[in-house]
């Protein structure tokens, strides 16, 4: 079974430019998450899709970030315009369901990440 894939693996752009990151979840996983790790800090949640709907976008830093998941399959995260503080590693994760048995939760499987450098 193929895991979560992300493209590109690295992106270097200048401040003010636009970048689009892509995530392909594990086939059949309705839940898709975006996380980010900036240097020296912990991985932080950005948002959560259930199929094509945004379930929780409380972690999105500002309106320069736009996430979409058309058709409930792959997702894109666009940063426009990029700022220096947007540099970091962006991870995508997917899970089969948000809750299975009462009180339980499905595992979130992570992709390899996209390293974004804004100069």
């Amino acid at each position, binding site marked *: 079974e193929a895991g979560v894939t992300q493209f590109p693996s690295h992106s270097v752009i200048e401040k003010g430019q636009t970048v689009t990151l892509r995530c392909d979840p594990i086939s059949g996983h309705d839940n898709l998450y975006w*996380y980010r790790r900036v240097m020296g800090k*912990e*991985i932080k949640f950005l948002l959560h899709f259930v199929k094509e709907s945004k379930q929780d976008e409380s972690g999105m830093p500002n309106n320069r970030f736009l996430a979409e998941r058309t058709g409930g399959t792959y997702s894109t995260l666009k940063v426009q315009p990029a700022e220096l503080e947007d540099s970091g590693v962006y991870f995508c994760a997917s899970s089969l369901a*948000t809750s299975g048995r009462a009180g339980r939760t499905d595992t979130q499987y*992570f992709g*390899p*990440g996209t390293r974004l450098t804004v100069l």
Partner: protein
Amino acid sequence: EDQVTQSPEALRLQEGESSSLNCSYTVSGLRGLFWYRQDPGKGPEFLFTLYSAGEEKEKERLKATLTKKESFLHITAPKPEDSATYLCAVQSRAGTALIFGKGTTLSVSS
């Protein structure tokens, strides 16, 4: 505020020297506590989920335990291939986001 603190930040062990990593957490209603392993340049790789105090899970040389305030990842007779960053994360009943600690970077030398 939900929070996860991992210690130590870095740990160096000799091959075969057992030790434990700590994950202290505060969360408003724990849905699950997760351990991941991360190798350089890769994404977090799932190891364990723990749901309630007293629960334990094992996988090869790793054993995870959970209390109401912390979790331990015990590494028995580690090998160089166990070198990685180990991440702890919690999920509250209020949401689905994982709240991560900064991780413990383990180096095992032969």
